[in-house]
């Protein structure tokens, strides 16, 4: 068993896990952060995408011990039911998402992009989503949603979180 400790969504989390435990399984099973999804377990689909020290990674491919001491952002750290990130708000306005299973990974990948490049071209958006599969939508409205989010004042002002009213 191995001790791991990481900062997840701003909160210190600790666990004792067997060596083969992936970051995804410690997030989902040990800490109950089930927002990140298991789609393929082999790095193909991007449903498990999280940020580790600001870089988007497939949590199914990293072992928990590899992330020891690092900072992790999951979808649970991106906004809640009445507090949406502009990417989430744009996805909602455009109904960019259908079944929703890919959404957590796509929102995280989009955030990784916008944090580095707040004014991406459509091609840059497509490239940022290269590691995320969506089987329902055909991507069009996801790409439009990210482009629209980049026009939100919060993003153009370099701010990454938007406050919303109650639903």
């Amino acid at each position, binding site marked *: 068993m191995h001790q791991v400790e990481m900062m997840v969504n701003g909160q210190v989390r600790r666990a004792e896990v067997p060596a083969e435990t992936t970051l995804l399984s410690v997030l989902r099973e040990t800490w109950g952060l089930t*927002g990140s999804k298991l789609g393929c377990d082999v790095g193909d689909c991007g449903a498990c995408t999280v940020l580790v020290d600001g870089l988007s990674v497939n949590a199914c491919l990293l072992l928990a011990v590899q992330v020891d001491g690092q900072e992790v952002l999951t979808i649970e*750290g991106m906004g809640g*039911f009445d507090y*949406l990130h502009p990417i989430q708000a744009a996805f909602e306005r455009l109904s960019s998402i259908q079944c929703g299973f890919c959404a957590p990974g796509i929102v995280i990948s989009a955030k990784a992009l916008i944090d580095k490049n707040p004014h991406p071209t459509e091609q840059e958006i497509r490239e940022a989503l290269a590691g995320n599969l*969506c089987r329902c939508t055909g991507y069009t409205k996801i790409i439009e949603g990210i482009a629209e989010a980049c026009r939100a004042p919060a993003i153009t*002002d*370099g*701010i990454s979180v938007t406050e919303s009213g109650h639903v």
Partner: protein
Amino acid sequence: MSEKPTKEKTADLGDLLAEPRVGQLPAVTRGPIPVVQALTVGANQQTPAVGQRVTRLDIRTHVTGSTRYIDDLAFPGMLHVKILRSTQAHARILSIDTTAARAMPGVVATLTGDEIPENSFGSSYQDQPVLAVDRVRHQGDGLVAIAAETEQQASDALAAVKVTYEPLPALFDPLEAIRPDAPKIHRDNNVYASKVIIRGDVEKGFAESDQIFERRYRTQMIEHVPMEPFAAIALWEPDGQLHVYSSNGRITLGRADLARTLQMPMNRIRVTATFIGGNFGGKNEIRTEPILALLAKKTRQPVKATFNREDEFIASTTRHPIIMDYKTGVADDGHLIARSVRLVLDGGAYASWSETTVGKAAILAAGPYRIPNVHVEGHAVYTNKTVTGAMRGFGAPQVAFAYESQMDEIANTLGMDPLAIRLLNGFSEGSISHTGQVLQAVALEETLLTAAKRSGWMEEGT
């Protein structure tokens, strides 16, 4: 940092993202959901819902990652189940030995097909075993289910199961499988569902035609690949009621199948549908539910089975590959006079939704065209391949590929514009379909012209 929002959760957020927030940020609200007028409209009228932008009711939980899919559910003491699958496409099972597997770390129970009260299921015919007992008919057939404390332990224990087989000749080509001397996969005929549609006299039509076009078209097997793999959970309520959670899209049928396989009254079974992370037809029947119910009973603990991506590919269903022989007779002016079609659907190892698929493929096979003489026959055939079943369109996309390809070939040969030949022959208001239905609200011409216009088809030089 500006004033923190009042909600606990939002306060966390501000801290954790540790990013500057300045001034008053734009409010994001859900906004009113557009009112959709009542959908009772007269014949041939468009419903007022078309063209309106409507916010999905479930999207906010989707984009915040808080939608609870089945794999996000867990119950105290829940065990994990993995299923050993056949390594053979077609074989007699000589023996299954689970002794060593039962002694593996974490293993709580195993289950084989002979423990299932009625070991068969299927949407049209009940020809599929829940777990194979004496024979496997494709590589995805399940043989043994193992419940263990962790998923890893259940997977490890699969390797300790010993199975001996006697291989049987396997069929991978449906054209071979329909030959009278082919080995039989179930009973005495590998053709298990057929549909024939006849209109006019196709031979006479060919005789009257100026030109005949003949070609074979084939499509491939396609897996739905929903982003969410199939999963189910079973537990027994204190009052003896079985409670199954499932990502099955047809829980009412699932409940009936559970009652049948478990030989239990349906009113003692409760099935809860969970949010589905993509279905596309691949989650339309039971997969592991009876196994889980029995393992939950044996162990007195909740049990869960989540397919991995490999299970999803080999042990769910796929889209039928179809071998499609088309013959069309036309007049020199482009009018279609006769069309005969033979469809051979690769039905895979079990029937699943093939009966529905062969029906729909046959009904649509001649295309949306006025053809006085039509003969269509479709056959679903057993092979030792992955089971084919429901998938978006139930056979319609396959035949559309064939008849539209042939329309293009005819247009090319006759020197006609591909659009013109479709406008010349396409169904219009009041046309009679190949199965005798008088068609209403036909917008084929309008649709084709709009598509042609928007795509620039009619512009010079395109």
